[in-house]
């Protein structure tokens, strides 16, 4: 079942992992799981991605991808719990900007969410379910892992190439 959703974005994950050793840490941002904080998350991503060298267009794409990931966490994983937090880390190497979104909600790997059938979606006027599709469309690679060293964490990694 999972193999159906594998695409070029997952295939280059191996490459990205190999590069993880030499990453520059750029910035870190921690915020509560409230929708009112989405705007400051977006500002944080925009500021750091233009500083890294993205043009405004590419920076906005990354902003939207991160918004969709965080909106999913806030609305679905945490429902109305606004006392938890999300941490966003930005790292880079020469050619990629890497955004880690870290939270401790129940494990959920968005890479294996099947892309919506857009024709059915349009014909049936479906609401919702498009956030993950948007997120996947706007970055070059997505990785996800869980870690448990005393505290359980999800780490969703979005990678966007400079060129």
């Amino acid at each position, binding site marked *: 079942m999972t193999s159906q959703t594998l695409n070029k974005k997952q295939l280059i994950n191996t490459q990205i992992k190999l590069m993880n050793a030499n990453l520059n840490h750029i910035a870190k941002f921690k915020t509560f799981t409230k*929708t*009112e904080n*989405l*705007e400051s998350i*977006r500002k944080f991503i925009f500021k750091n991605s233009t500083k890294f060298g993205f043009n405004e267009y590419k920076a*906005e794409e990354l902003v*939207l991808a991160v*918004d*969709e990931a965080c*909106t999913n966490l*806030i*609305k679905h994983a945490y429902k109305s719990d606004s006392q938890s937090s999300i941490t966003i880390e930005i790292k880079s190497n020469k050619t990629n900007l890497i955004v880690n979104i870290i939270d401790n909600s129940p494990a959920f790997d968005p890479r294996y969410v099947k892309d919506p059938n*857009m024709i059915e979606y*349009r014909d049936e*006027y*479906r*609401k*919702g379910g*498009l*956030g993950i*599709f*948007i997120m996947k*469309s706007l970055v070059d690679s997505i990785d996800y892992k869980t870690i448990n060293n005393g505290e359980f964490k999800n780490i969703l990694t979005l990678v966007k190439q400079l060129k």
Partner: protein
Amino acid sequence: MNDNLKINTVNKQNVVCFYLAGQLDAHSAPLLENEIEKVISNCNKLVFNLSNLDYISSAGLGVFMSFIQELRDNNGDIKFSELNDKVKNVMDLLGFNHIYDITNTEQEAIDKYSN
């Protein structure tokens, strides 16, 4: 509370024009939902002038999807006009141009209701 989106409505030729300014995201989407609810009890022909909308995410687009069927079932519609590039790119990504009338000017959108 929902201060990242401003919504104004004006009646023009039996059409209600919504002027959205700011950001339509998961935070402001409920506000827009409420405003549309209020309007559609009296009028089901809507035009959204998005010239001052700087940002939209899937949560915002979902608001329109949740009303469109009911409106079309009652001979109404949602039409969009004056999108900036940023908003247009997101709508194109999801094929909104196949679902909705999207026009350059607000007047074109209004005129489509009388054709």
